[in-house]
């Protein structure tokens, strides 16, 4: 590979664009300059930190190191999904649901990729496992948090409609089926957009990165297609688990709507 190495000076020039954004904000009184600069600084620190950590994990070449970093990344994603909805479950229910969703979605998709398409030796080679988890967690997070937010916001808003059906003898399943469909649909929209735009409207980040790093475009495309399939699988599983699990917690053995399990 003949990747062109970037020097700190190259990055500093690109950082000028961020400074330009900040300057615009000051001139137009958008009051965004602080946020822009903090976000940019945060991004640099986070990425540099993960770069060092990945270097360490790669050189350790030990399954425990690989699993440890995957666990930390997954835990952060689960926390973000649970934190996103405006209405939240009391106690640790939200975290338990998002944790389950993240775990199932990641294990299934990454496991599938590592055991079929990409078969690294050894299987725990962090270069593959951690990168795959990283990219899939993004989609899992997106789908899971949007679906979860849509479910919990919708159930509180549609309380009258749901209980009116229950009160006439509908099952809980019947009463919440439009809500369930809507929450999962919303969760899957980002990955559907991503797939339909790929290559026509956007060149996906991974592919661009690989091409910039010197890989043949067709090779990069194959990886990208594989990843897109994994992302859609991860999105679907994540949305499905948080929505079905969330609905189970929103009812009980007498098929009531238990909004009392949400925080006020």
């Amino acid at each position, binding site marked *: 590979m003949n990747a062109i190495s970037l020097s700190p000076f190259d990055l500093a020039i690109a950082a000028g664009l961020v400074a330009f954004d900040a300057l615009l904000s000051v001139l137009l009184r958008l009051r965004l300059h602080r946020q822009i600069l903090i976000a940019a600084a945060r991004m640099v620190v986070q990425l540099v930190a993960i770069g060092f950590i990945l270097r360490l994990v790669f050189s350790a070449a030990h399954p425990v190191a690989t699993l440890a970093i995957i666990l930390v990344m997954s835990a952060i994603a689960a926390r973000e999904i649970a934190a996103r909805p405006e209405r939240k479950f009391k106690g640790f229910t939200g975290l338990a649901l998002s944790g389950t969703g993240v775990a199932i979605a990641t294990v299934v998709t990454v496991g599938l990729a590592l055991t079929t398409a990409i078969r690294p030796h050894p299987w725990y080679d962090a270069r593959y496992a951690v990168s795959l988890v990283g990219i899939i967690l993004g989609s899992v997070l997106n789908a899971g948090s949007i679906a979860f937010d849509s479910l919990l916001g919708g159930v509180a808003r*549609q*309380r*009258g*409609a*749901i*209980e*009116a*059906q*229950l*009160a*006439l*003898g*509908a*099952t809980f399943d019947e*009463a919440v089926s*439009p809500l369930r469909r809507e929450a999962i649909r919303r969760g899957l929209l980002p990955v559907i957009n991503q797939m339909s735009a790929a290559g026509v409207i956007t060149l996906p980040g991974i592919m661009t990165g690989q091409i910039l790093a010197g890989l043949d475009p067709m090779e990069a495309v194959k990886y990208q297609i594989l990843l897109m399939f994994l992302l859609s699988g991860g999105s679907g599983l994540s949305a499905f688990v948080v929505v079905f699990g969330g609905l189970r917690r929103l009812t*009980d053995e*007498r*098929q*009531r*709507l*238990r909004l009392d399990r949400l925080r006020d």
Partner: protein
Amino acid sequence: MAEPAPPPAPETPPPRLTLRDLQSPLAGPFTLELPRGGCAAVSGQSGSGKSLFLRMVADLDPNTGEVRLDGAPRAGLAAPAWRRRVPYVAADSGWWRDRVAEHFAPDQLARARELAARLALAPDLIEGPVQRLSTGERQRLAVIRALVLDSPALLLDEPTGALDPDSTAKMEAILKERLAAGTTIILVTHDPAQGERLGARRFVMRDRRLEPAA
């Protein structure tokens, strides 16, 4: 040794609706028996627990105690089956589809149109969108949704709260018919005279307990 003879069948049938120590952390305990065709009218200040009471009978809020329909315990029925027999109509009607007709099963529509006509609702309302209904129209149609179930009991939360005197009289006429046909009704009302007109046992909800009205 001879088997003991089975006890003779009771002369009187069990009450239609039996509530014994029905309670939750929010309201109760409530104990009440209503015969076939019996009616209980509950009034009381806002927030006194009238709606909570009906919701507990319908099993929409967690509760403990004993509830029976014609002697059969509520716990022996799946919750949806129970609520089909003892449907509850909230004061605030809920709608889950765009058009009114979609809220009825196809085989209920003819009955619904008939009842709507008797409640002075324009015939095209049922075909139209829910959005266009007034509060009073919504309320009448929500009660019709429960009436078409032909259930042995009905729980009605202010079924005439948003209606003018004329519509109220029409609704009461239908309720009286149902009572005469054996349906048992518990209704919440702000109008003490309504209970009297329906020949109901009257109760006042005070501090989340039922008391016989003076």
